[in-house]
């Protein structure tokens, strides 16, 4: 089992350490996941997400390589732009969801912890004859997220750079608390905020300093449980749940990430799905009968299993029992009713609009 540089810091804060994607990470601190969730919606939260991978891509053919392996047209990206994208298999299902940064002389590709080794091998295998260098920066960079409506004002105390000028989905290379940092105005919570990359050896001091700088604003350290409930409300997919090698990108409603005007691995298969319409679709469900619909629970219509829940919980912000589920296209319209089978009992749910919580970006 691996540990991030902040392991001892989490333990000292009373973090409850659990295994996640081969890492020991805090699922919550003594404040509890609900309090942490609300802190991010109303103030700010700090997350250790150093389990995620950072791959640098450089070389004369770096752009051609990235155009080949992921779905977003990077020719549309200016220097210091950042964008969400997908790596697809040839059949249109998903290798991973990624975040792209266009930095000076190089690209940074952020990948999921659980997929890091798989992605690395898969990317290497797609190089072909291209003159491109892939460098794994995961060990030398520590990745953190500062999320919430007060994220900017808190982080501004640690830098002379004008954070107000760093727009949503752009990046900056700045000095932060004396450290060389890459910051991206993005996140996985549905709130304004930043994802940060700092040198690993400065991580502990930086974490403590940032928590201190945000104390008066209600900044709390947040664990994996709050990270999951926040992303869930904003209907951001989690690989292994809403995205996988068994779900194509259009079933997962990720068409908005796809630039059809360029070639990429998986395009032919995905275009076929687009023309023939996806047979299944990811939907949002609101429970009509009170019950917590959890991942892998069956979705049924008239007693027949037709799909499954991919993620579900009681939404802390909306105070409703909600779920995301993969169902046949015939049951995907808003207002359609289905059952979620909870411990053998059918519980009625209706299809509702996604996202459950509308992101509040700057």
């Amino acid at each position: 089992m691996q540990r991030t540089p902040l392991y001892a810091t989490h333990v000292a804060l009373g973090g409850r350490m659990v295994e996640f994607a081969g890492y020991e990470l805090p699922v919550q601190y003594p404040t509890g996941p609900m309090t942490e969730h609300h802190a991010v919606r109303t103030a700010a939260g700090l997350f250790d997400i150093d389990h995620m991978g950072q791959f640098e891509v450089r070389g004369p053919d770096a752009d051609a390589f990235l155009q080949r392996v992921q779905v977003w047209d990077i020719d549309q990206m200016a220097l210091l732009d950042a964008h969400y994208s997908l790596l697809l298999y040839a059949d249109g299902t998903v290798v991973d969801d990624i975040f792209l940064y266009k930095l000076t002389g190089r690209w940074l590709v952020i990948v999921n912890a659980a997929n890091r080794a798989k992605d690395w091998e898969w990317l290497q295998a797609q190089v072909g004859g291209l003159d491109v260098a892939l460098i794994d920066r995961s060990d030398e960079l520590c990745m953190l997220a500062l999320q919430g409506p007060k994220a900017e004002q808190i982080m501004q105390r640690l830098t002379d750079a004008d954070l107000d000028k760093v727009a949503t989905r752009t990046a900056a290379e700045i000095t932060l608390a004396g450290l060389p940092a890459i910051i991206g105005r993005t996140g996985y919570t549905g709130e304004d905020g930043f994802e940060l990359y700092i040198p690993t050896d400065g991580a502990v001091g930086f974490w403590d300093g940032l928590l201190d700088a945000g104390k008066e604003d209600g900044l709390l350290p947040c664990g994996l449980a709050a990270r999951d409930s926040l992303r869930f409300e904003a209907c951001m997919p989690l690989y292994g749940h809403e995205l996988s090698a068994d779900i194509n990108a259009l079933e997962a409603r990720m068409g908005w990430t796809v630039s059809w005007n360029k070639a990429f691995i998986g395009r032919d298969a995905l275009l076929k799905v687009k023309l023939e319409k996806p047979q299944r679709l990811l939907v949002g469900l609101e429970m009509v009968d009170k019950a917590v619909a959890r991942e892998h629970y069956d979705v049924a219509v008239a007693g027949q299993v037709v799909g499954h829940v991919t993620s579900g919980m009681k939404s802390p912000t909306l105070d409703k029992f909600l779920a995301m589920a993969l169902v046949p296209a015939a049951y995907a319209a808003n207002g359609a009713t289905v059952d979620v089978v909870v411990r053998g009992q059918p519980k009625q749910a209706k299809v509702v609009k996604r996202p459950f919580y509308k992101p509040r970006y700057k």
Partner: protein
Amino acid sequence: MANFKLDNDARYAKSHEWVRVEDGVAVVGISDAAQDMLSDVVYVELPEIGRVVKAGEAISTVESVKAAEDVNAPVSGVIVEVNSALEDTPEIVNTQPYTAWFFRIEPTAALESELAGLMAAADYDAYVAASAH
């Protein structure tokens, strides 16, 4: 590890329910250690009134942010009342584990022997401490 609260008047099951006999009726909830392991409770599914239950039988479910866990009947009998306050304010299971009871059981003649098979507060405390390692 945290120091968990105990109710010295209650008996405890290995599955972390507490039971207190009040006016001849067995009152059941989950322990402070159990609510801590669960983290924030968001929903409690209670048994039907009138249901005949056996000691050790899973008859209710407590759902936290993280997981769904069974709640067992620590003693046998008939469910005579459920705590409907848990429907709208399940979080009291976290804040007041020994007053946020789940259900009341009209016990059978086996009550005394079933209670004897459960743990006293001090023994339960030691059991929780031992299972934490």
